């Protein structure tokens, strides 16, 4: 449902025009939707900030904390996918960072436990073995866990960015012409 603007003044604030294409672009690459809308500086801030947080977290975890485990549990592919997400719910948050998390999906789809690497991407975002996860948690002085928390927060923050691309900021400023003054004044509206 489109958010409606509230204005106490005599001039009604125009309704928000939803931009789903910009939302999709901001999902794929944080800030890209804002750049498409002409809000370039804001888009670049989102891009730099969210990718910095995501890749900082990924590096903190030895680049082994963004993945989806194939637990091979479930009768149908859908049930299996649901079980795998249940075993690795972190990826639900990481997914929203967009293209940057897609290698994990590629590795999940092409996972073969008999091989050490996945096709095309090698070991990038491939699910580590349980022995390796145990080693990382034991020897990396909590940074592996801290790292995945950062990647999840980056993904979840991108949901706000996607919303901003679709419907604009939560508080909109519009130029309102006041009859008593010659120049239009700014008013902030809450959705």
């Amino acid at each position: 449902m489109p958010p409606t603007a509230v204005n106490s003044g005599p001039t009604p604030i125009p309704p928000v025009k939803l931009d789903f294409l910009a939302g999709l672009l901001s999902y794929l690459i944080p800030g890209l939707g804002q750049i498409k809308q002409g809000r370039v500086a804001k888009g670049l801030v989102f891009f730099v900030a969210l990718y910095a947080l995501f890749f900082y977290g990924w590096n903190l975890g030895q680049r082994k904390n963004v993945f989806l485990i194939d637990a091979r549990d479930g009768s149908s592919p859908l049930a299996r996918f649901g079980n795998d997400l249940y075993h690795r719910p972190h990826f639900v948050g990481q997914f929203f960072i967009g293209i940057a998390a897609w290698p994990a999906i590629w590795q999940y789809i092409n996972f073969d436990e008999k091989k050490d690497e996945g096709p095309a991407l090698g070991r990038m975002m491939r699910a580590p073995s349980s022995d390796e996860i145990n080693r990382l948690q034991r020897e990396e002085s909590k940074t592996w866990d801290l790292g995945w928390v950062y990647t999840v927060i980056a993904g979840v923050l991108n949901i706000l960015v996607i919303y901003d691309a679709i419907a604009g900021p939560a508080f909109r400023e519009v130029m309102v012409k006041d009859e008593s003054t010659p120049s239009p004044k700014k008013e902030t509206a809450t959705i």
Partner: protein
Amino acid sequence: MSIYWHLPILIIVVSIVYSATRFDNWSMIFREAFRWGLRMSLFLFGIGFALYALSSLV
């Protein structure tokens, strides 16, 4: 290195991104980001202090 040294990037990014989704005006964004950064820092410092006090005194 203590894991707490990794906190500033988290506080800065969360403050700026959240504030930038609230406003389009840069002065409002920076003002809101500063407020949120301060709130989060005080909250985390408070939690840290409480845990330190508990571990030291109890």
